[in-house]
């Protein structure tokens, strides 16, 4: 329990450093905006992170409630999942820099205390767990993007065609290969392509 | 090359800052060394100015009017036609008004009807100086409570603070109400407070206050801390009273009754 008290005490300093580490891990062009931001202007990423770190830290420290953690992580990662400047590792790396922030905020004496070290190992494994959760969220978001990318438009148009009876579904039990035979002998769609406005 | 350019820029920066200020700085610099400000040699000096009014020497208002006139004339005090706008540096009032707390039913008839001269008391602890938000009213080392008309904002806090009612305010431009202007003394403008200045401008050139001069010896003026002074002489030999002593303001006007 002693580590928890220590962390609770040094929370402000740890979060400050955590944020700092996160910002410094960004591509320089973005970091410039994150770092220099005086008010909430600039990149939503910076502010989202800023606002989510404390509750997230509290949750790691005290609760580790899966649902709560996801709810703090989701907004941070959801935005980054569509900001192509981040590689997947960059998108979730910030979780792990909490380890560094915690360690550098413990005094030497505290760092050598066996009891604390043991607790620290447990704490860090919780961070790993959160990191993995972050990765899950990131992947979920990316999958969603790709689903939208791959199917969204086509599906909608296709459904409309299908409903209009312009498309034949393959009847069960028939030999595959004869697909999507159009109803009329005339092609209904001009041969250029299938575009929606 | 890089170096010389940098030093050039440095030089330029410095001269940009110092630009144009040089001649002026010179002027002031030389002034500091040589120019001097002094008091006039003939100026009257005292540790604490005080005034003793020997009321025994007055009988009626007629005796006092010339004194008031003398003061008001040299100080360009206007004579307003509207009572509300009245300005007085020195004026005349009855015993019961001047010494509000010492009046009683059985007071001596002479005193009861005797006109008294009233003016600023140049208090030791002046409330007006205390309250002034701009230091426009201030106390000089020699005890004179003086006004800097240039600085007065006309808030009239001093008028509320003065327990003697010695202060007046220029409710309007005084100039049209000054019969004869004394060119040697400025008038005031609308919107500032004024009061008796113990003729500080006369003391500076070695003259006694105008009222003293006009009183034919009924008013004495001098240094309270000079044991040889006329005022000390009078205080030693006569019983004197001062106004509203209980307020602790320490008025410098003594009355021999």
């Amino acid at each position: 329990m002693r580590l928890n008290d220590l962390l609770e005490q040094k929370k402000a300093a740890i979060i400050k450093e955590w944020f700092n580490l996160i910002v410094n891990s960004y591509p320089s062009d973005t970091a410039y905006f994150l770092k220099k931001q005086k008010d909430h202007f600039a990149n939503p990423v910076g502010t989202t992170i800023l606002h989510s770190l404390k509750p997230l830290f509290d949750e790691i420290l005290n609760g580790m409630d899966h649902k709560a953690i996801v709810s703090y992580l989701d907004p941070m990662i959801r935005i980054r999942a569509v900001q192509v400047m981040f590689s997947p590792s960059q998108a979730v790396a910030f979780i792990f820099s909490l380890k560094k922030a915690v360690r550098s905020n413990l005094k030497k004496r505290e760092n050598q205390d066996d009891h604390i070290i043991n607790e620290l190992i447990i704490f860090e494994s919780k961070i790993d767990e959160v990191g993995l959760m972050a990765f899950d969220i990131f992947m979920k978001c990316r999958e969603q993007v790709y689903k939208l990318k791959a199917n969204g438009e086509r599906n909608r148009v296709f459904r409309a065609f299908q409903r209009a009876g312009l498309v034949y579904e393959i009847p069960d039990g028939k030999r595959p290969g004869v697909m999507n035979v159009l109803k009329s002998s005339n092609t209904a769609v001009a041969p250029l392509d299938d575009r929606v406005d | 090359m890089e170096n010389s350019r940098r030093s050039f820029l440095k030089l330029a920066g410095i001269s940009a800052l110092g630009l144009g200020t040089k001649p002026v700085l010179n002027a002031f610099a030389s002034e500091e060394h040589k120019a001097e400000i002094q008091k006039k040699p003939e100026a009257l000096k005292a540790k604490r100015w005080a005034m003793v009014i020997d009321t025994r020497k007055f009988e009626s208002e007629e005796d006092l009017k010339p004194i008031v006139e003398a003061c008001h004339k040299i100080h360009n005090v206007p004579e307003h036609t509207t009572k509300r706008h009245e300005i007085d540096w020195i004026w005349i009032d009855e015993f019961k008004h001047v010494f509000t707390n010492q009046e009683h039913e059985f007071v001596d008839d002479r005193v009861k009807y005797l006109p008294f001269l009233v003016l600023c008391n140049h208090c030791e602890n002046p409330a007006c100086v205390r309250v002034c938000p701009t230091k426009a009213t201030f106390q000089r080392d020699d005890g004179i409570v003086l006004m800097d008309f240039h600085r007065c904002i006309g808030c009239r806090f001093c008028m509320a603070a003065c327990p003697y009612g010695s202060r007046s305010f220029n409710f309007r431009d005084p100039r049209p109400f000054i019969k004869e202007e004394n060119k040697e003394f400025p008038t005031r403008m609308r919107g500032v407070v004024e009061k008796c200045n113990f003729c500080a401008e006369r003391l500076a050139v070695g003259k006694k206050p105008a009222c003293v001069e006009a009183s034919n010896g009924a008013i004495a003026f001098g240094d309270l801390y000079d044991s040889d002074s006329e005022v000390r002489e009078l205080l030693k030999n006569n019983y004197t009273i001062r106004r509203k002593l209980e307020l602790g303001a320490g008025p410098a006007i003594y009355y021999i009754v």
Partner: protein
Amino acid sequence: MNQKYMYSLIAVIVLILIAYVGVEAAGLQVLFGIILPYIAVLIFIAGFVYRVMDWASSPVPFSIPSTCGQQKTLSWIKHDKIDNPTTTTGVIIRMMLEILLFRSLFRNTKFALNEGPKISYVWEKWLWLVSLAFHYSFLVVLIRHLRFFLEPVPVWLQWLEEVDTFFQLGLPGLFLTGAILLGATTFLFLRRIYLPEMRYISLAADYFPLFLIISIAITGILMRYFTKVYIVGVKELAIGLASFHPTIPDGIGVLFYIHLLLVSVFFAYFPFSKLMHMPGIFLSPTRNLANNTRFKRHINPWNYPVETHTYEEYEDEFREKMIGAGLPVEKELPVVEKE
């Protein structure tokens, strides 16, 4: 160190040095006091006219006002006559609000992300307020300077000065607009330096006029309150310029020539810079046009005929299918003889 503002800062410092050396060392008062101001005014007028006429020479082919309110429509729907004007009066009011009160900047919001995350758009008042303060005090300062050019000084100008020095602060009395001008330009400069996005988009050409105006204000304030110049000489010079009898009176400090050179540069620079936003705003088609193109035809002077896909060509291509689908056609199918 930001190169862009350093360039501008150095440029202004060099200008100051030129005037200083030119007057103090080389005695080129005639150049700085007469020749350059005349040239500057000439460049200003010619350049200004040239630029505006150049804009005028390009037509406005389409009416594309930004509509910021409800259009004129059915009689019972309240039409926003100012933000979506349909008449000249509406446009004039809209332009007046824009020019006199900076209507669009008044609308400005600042994007902010809050816990949640929740996006909010907070009214951003400072840019609007300071810009207003800056432009109006600049205008007053400019008008006040007419006292050097007009003799006798008109009464209205004296009133203006009286109001501007209402508070007796210092000797001679502090002109409030001068102080506001300096304060506002400093704010505008600091904004460019401290806000990252402003710093990113700012060019040397954004800093230069700011430094120029700040320097002009500082030299002006210095001359009035700190290191005095011979004001009668200044007016003599100014009147001389205005009446085409230029003279160089003796005894005017070098500070004045620096001030004058900076002002000359300001005027000469004006037509070739972003400062042309002053006339530009009057000509901005998204603001000075009425949104009335559905009931009043806007003419494009260079409208030219274009190639289109006509109905005839269309029917020719799809006639068979159209007939098949029961669509009416202009021409029936040709009877194709079978061979």
